[in-house]
């Protein structure tokens, strides 16, 4: 059975059907792309997968667990982590603390251990520091652990957000337009990072991206959405030759 199994997922907002009949099957260790013109419902699909929105219909199963309409907390614990289109870091916290917050449900201890700063507190904090520094090291930003998150340059903020998501040790990582706002060099570097994450952590990655070169270059399987419906699905070559996809992309959307 696949890691993530989505069937017939749909949601509407005040009569507008934002997504319908969305389905997806994701295997561990693979890279998936979700593309489509603006307003096609890509982020909405992400929001349903992560529990931000409750779908009107359909089913989502992660590793055999039904997560349809569950809270973001439940889904995060079940093993889905995400990044956001418009970077959502904890801006006033240090880079290190951002990653440590990501471990919230992985390395735990009760409030009173923290108040009394006992042995449990110290050993867990040490464990967190170590893990967080290792993660930051993978992304080459370990030397900036003490910076306040908003001090990082844009590209590194994107990296930190991925770092934070990985800190929750997810089975599936959702990246919402990770290359948005990046220059070609940064994009190239990001491509390597994403690949590396997949290889080193052995998790599944599903990403939304507008940069076609980026998607075609790294994704093994691509799903194309238009007006909330899947219009094509397959490997990069199949998708890029699909007449409906070409029509959708040449059909006036210049983004």
């Amino acid at each position: 059975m696949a890691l993530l199994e989505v069937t017939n997922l749909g949601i509407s907002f005040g009569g507008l059907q934002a997504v319908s009949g969305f389905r997806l099957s994701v295997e561990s260790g693979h890279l998936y792309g979700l593309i489509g013109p603006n307003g096609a419902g890509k982020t909405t699909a992400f929001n349903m997968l992560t529990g931000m929105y409750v779908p009107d219909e359909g089913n989502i199963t992660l590793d055999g667990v039904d997560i349809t309409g569950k809270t973001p907390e439940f889904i995060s614990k079940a093993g889905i982590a995400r990044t956001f289109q418009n970077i959502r870091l904890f801006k006033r916290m240090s880079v290190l603390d951002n990653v440590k917050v990501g471990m919230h449900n992985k390395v735990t201890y009760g409030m009173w251990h923290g108040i009394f700063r006992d042995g449990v507190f110290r050993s867990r904090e040490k464990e967190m520091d170590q893990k967080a520094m290792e993660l930051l090291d993978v992304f080459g930003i370990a030397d900036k652990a003490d910076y306040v998150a908003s001090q990082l340059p844009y590209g590194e903020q994107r990296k930190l957000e991925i770092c934070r998501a990985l800190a929750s040790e997810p089975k599936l990582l959702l990246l919402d337009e990770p290359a948005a706002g990046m220059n070609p060099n940064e994009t190239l570097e990001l491509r390597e990072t994403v690949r590396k994450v997949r290889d080193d952590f052995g998790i599944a990655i599903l990403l939304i991206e507008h940069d076609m070169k980026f998607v075609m270059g790294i994704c093994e399987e691509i799903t194309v959405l238009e007006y909330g419906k899947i219009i094509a699905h397959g490997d990069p070559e199949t998708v890029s030759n699909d007449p409906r996809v070409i029509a959708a992309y040449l059909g006036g959307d210049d983004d």
Partner: protein
Amino acid sequence: MAGNNQKKRKKSTKTYILSFALILGFWVVIEILGHMGLLSSKMLGLLIPICAYAIMAVSLNLVVGFLGELSLGHAAFMLAGATAGVVFYNGAGLNMPQIPRVIITLIIGAAAAGIFGVIVGVPVLRFSGDYLAIVTLAFCQILKNVLSTTYLGVDSKGIHLALDQSAFRLEPGAKPLIKGAQPISGINKISPDMMISFTVGIALLILTVTFVLNLMNSRAGRAITAIRDDEIAAKSIGINLTRYKLMAFISSAVFAGLAGVIYVLNLSTLDFKKYDYNLSINVLVMVVLGGMGNVPGSIIAAAVLTLLPELLRDFSQYRMFIYSIVLIVIMLFTQAPAFVQLRHRLMAMIRPKKSMPEETVEKADGSYFAAQADRKEDE
């Protein structure tokens, strides 16, 4: 890597050292001056209020500075703690030896404030921003109002509680504990020796500061600050928003309750009318002037703002006038973008080497994101 960790530890350690040095330094200076008999009775009378307001400010900072939610009802928790404490202190605790009596009073005050914190927090924390502010203010007014119409007393037949004077009858000789809008007076001080009471106040302040700093430097504290910085991201990471918001809110209430107990035991009277939104606002002003999320700052601001009106008492008619102008001018100088930029330019001129002092961060961040937005639009 190790070096980085060291530096990071240094930063939080600095806050600890600064806070405790400040409190202990204040305690030592006052003890010395007190035993030399150099403190005026006016100054002696201000010692406990300074401790109480410092506890209020540090605990409110937990909600306003660390959780990032605006509460205008902090006085209510002080009042809840003070009232419950006094009812015990003058009631069941009346004939107890003083030390256990004070300790139990403090515990009861803290517990009552905590319970009121749960009652207020559970419905209120669904709101945010200005709505949270108005609803906390509403709860504060309700508590003050209801207590002002409450009659409570004990006689041989048991406890009598009424919301109306006419329904309230005690046996002759029995003393009522709460008499409606009438202030409760004749509350014994913690100790006839002001220096001992002051030490109790300092001990409670240390307790509060230790709790708040330890909480904020732990897993729970990180969750609380994460919620402040970005609720949606915090949610996506699996943080239970309600749990941590309530944790901050209730902890804050508990310490306000403690502050209420020592404040009222020092004052000897409890007048419900005084615990209104004006008091909440005064504490809020301390938090803002001391710096959001800045614990030593809250302590200093509380001490200065408690002393200031008294020091200005010689200009008694002008003191609140001066206070209000000082408040506006400070806000303009520290918060207006035009002034902030000017200050940073001056700072940069003084120490050009030190890269990015923490204060510039938010500014840099704002302009950075604006630049990003422009970039996106160009595409």
